[in-house]
């Protein structure tokens, strides 16, 4: 009796240490992430800028939803016709332009690399090479591509002229879609290797007996892909999608350093929402209040995307099964009551 009481006390004593081990994480999180987030949300409802004429800071003073009004309603009174939503739109477009080809190519490569009939011996080398751009400093890659696509003497222009594809050098960074295309391409090029490695690991995680069974049953390669590989890859595809969407919405380094002005040439058409947010906060009148409201919009959109993707990718069969189970249980309960 006494012994068990002692034992009990001992376990309680040990569990106390759990708090000590996780304390640094939570303290640092509270100071450096949670409080700044709350602070940002608070600032979004405050008037706070610097009067450039006298160089004095105004605010922060509570001003209700005034910041959100300027974020949502344009000068012409139209909803969403603002620079915030233009930059959000730019961000989403450039993310889609890189993500769709990225996931398709990564999936294709993952299937090739795991194909047991057509073995690829050099896949280790391929993985190392195609993954490589992912770990190189994005700032450096951006300036590199800026130099490569330079007008009129950048290597790309030189090559296009030498090959006779163009008659005169092309101003890539003065065309909306060319610049967006380059930014999307850089992102695609940096990330498809990563996605491919993740998806390859995912396919290898599927039990080989499932593929064999499908093959014995006479399923074609495409049928196997559609009915076995894709459904079982769903959690990993979801992970990739959410990760990429959230990362894509924060896109900053590459568009910031790719064009000369750094403000999303041409005509702010490649300015992403994080770029705009920082321009508001740290240039000119330093509109911290409006920048915070923009951050809140970004936060809500980020949250919305991750929830939406979870909803789309949810396991429909599992839900159906659960529903059926519930119905059966209800039926049984009803019968039992009778």
């Amino acid at each position, binding site marked *: 009796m006494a012994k068990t009481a002692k034992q009990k006390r001992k376990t309680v004593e*040990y569990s106390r*240490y*759990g*708090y000590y*081990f*996780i304390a*640094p*994480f939570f303290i*640092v*999180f509270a100071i*450096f*992430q949670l*409080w*700044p*987030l709350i*602070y*940002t*949300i*608070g*600032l979004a409802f405050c008037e706070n800028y610097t009067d450039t004429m006298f160089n004095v800071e105004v605010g922060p003073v509570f001003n209700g939803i005034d910041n959100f009004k300027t974020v949502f309603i344009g000068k012409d009174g139209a909803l969403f016709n603002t620079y915030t939503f233009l930059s959000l739109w730019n961000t989403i477009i450039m993310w889609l332009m890189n993500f769709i080809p990225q996931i398709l190519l990564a999936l294709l*490569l993952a299937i090739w690399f795991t194909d047991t009939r*057509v073995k*690829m011996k*050099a896949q280790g080398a391929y993985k190392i*090479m*195609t*993954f*490589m751009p992912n*770990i*190189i*400093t994005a700032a*450096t*890659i951006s*300036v*590199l*591509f800026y130099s*490569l696509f330079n007008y009129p*003497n950048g*290597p790309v222009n030189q090559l296009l002229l030498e090959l006779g594809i163009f008659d005169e050098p092309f101003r890539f960074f003065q065309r909306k879609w060319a610049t967006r295309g380059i930014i999307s391409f850089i992102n695609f*090029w940096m990330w498809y290797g990563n996605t491919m*490695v993740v998806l390859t690991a*995912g396919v290898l995680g599927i039990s080989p007996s499932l593929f064999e069974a499908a093959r014995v049953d006479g399923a074609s390669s495409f049928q196997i892909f559609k009915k076995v590989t894709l459904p079982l890859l769903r*959690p*990993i595809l979801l*992970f990739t999608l*959410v990760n990429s969407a*959230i990362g894509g*919405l924060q896109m*900053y*380094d590459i568009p*910031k*350093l790719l064009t000369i002005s750094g403000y999303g040439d041409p005509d702010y058409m490649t300015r992403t929402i994080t770029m705009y*947010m920082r321009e508001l906060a*740290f240039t000119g009148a330093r509109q*911290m209040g409006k920048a*915070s409201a923009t*951050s809140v919009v970004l*936060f809500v959109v*980020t*949250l919305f995307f991750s929830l939406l993707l979870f909803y789309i990718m949810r396991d429909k069969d599992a839900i159906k099964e659960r529903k059926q189970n519930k119905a059966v249980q209800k039926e049984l309960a009803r019968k039992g009551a009778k």
Partner: protein
Amino acid sequence: MMADGAQKMKKGAHARILGASIFRNIVCIFLCFLSLIPFWIMLVNATRSSTDIQMAFSLIPSTHIWENFQKLLYQANENVPLYRYMINSLVIAGFSTVLSVYFSTATAYGVTVYRFKGSQFAWAFIMAIMMIPTQVSSIGFFRFMYNLGLSNNFIPLIIPAIAAPATVFFMRQYMLSALPLEIIDAARIDGSGEFKTFNTIAVPLMKPAVATQAIFVFIASWNNFYTPSMLLSSQSLYTLPMFVQLMRGERFRSDYGIIYVGLVITILPIFIVYFALSKYIIAGVALGGVKE
């Protein structure tokens, strides 16, 4: 007759497999080429004189690298010596890595080994905040640090590394398979204190995961441009990616040879680390991706 047909089919299938194999390898070789070519052009142009670079496209290295490097040093060293940026990056990335890996292991240890009130909640919380990007709170972060007088300081770039949910996640996944609880119990019986057990038994057992995560945290910190460029205003504190931004400025824009050499210098350390550790890096990415 039947056997003949089967053999023919087999031959056909064999040819098809060979064809597919050739096609797939060609595509992959093309992709490898695509990964390398921008860096190759960068390396080649770093060795060419500025006038050559403007004259024509070339894939053959020249001999002007030392000259370009000297010019770069001359231009860059005007205010702050070039090695300064590298040291700054190294200090920030080094401390961040040590703190992040150590405390992430500790946090994972806390929620895995101990059953305390709220341990389940703590784990769910860590999973939930993994989705929140740092950018959304950056305005508040900047103002808060500015008010504390830390805006021109390395502290806000290093200390937050202690709270890295993704690293904690990875550590816990690994811990579940690599750290048997019996060992910890045995240590307790031997009279080892809880922190001593963690430092001398758990951390060494976690070495492979620690190494993998250390590489990732270091690279992420080394490459980080967003936060340093927001916080640091005095040029002597600039990091390497911020130096890259400087190179786009007027002073360098006229001379392409310098820019390319500068880019090579910023990329070289990462290149060396990557090709030395690529096996572990790719294995780590594959492990991190297979999350339930």
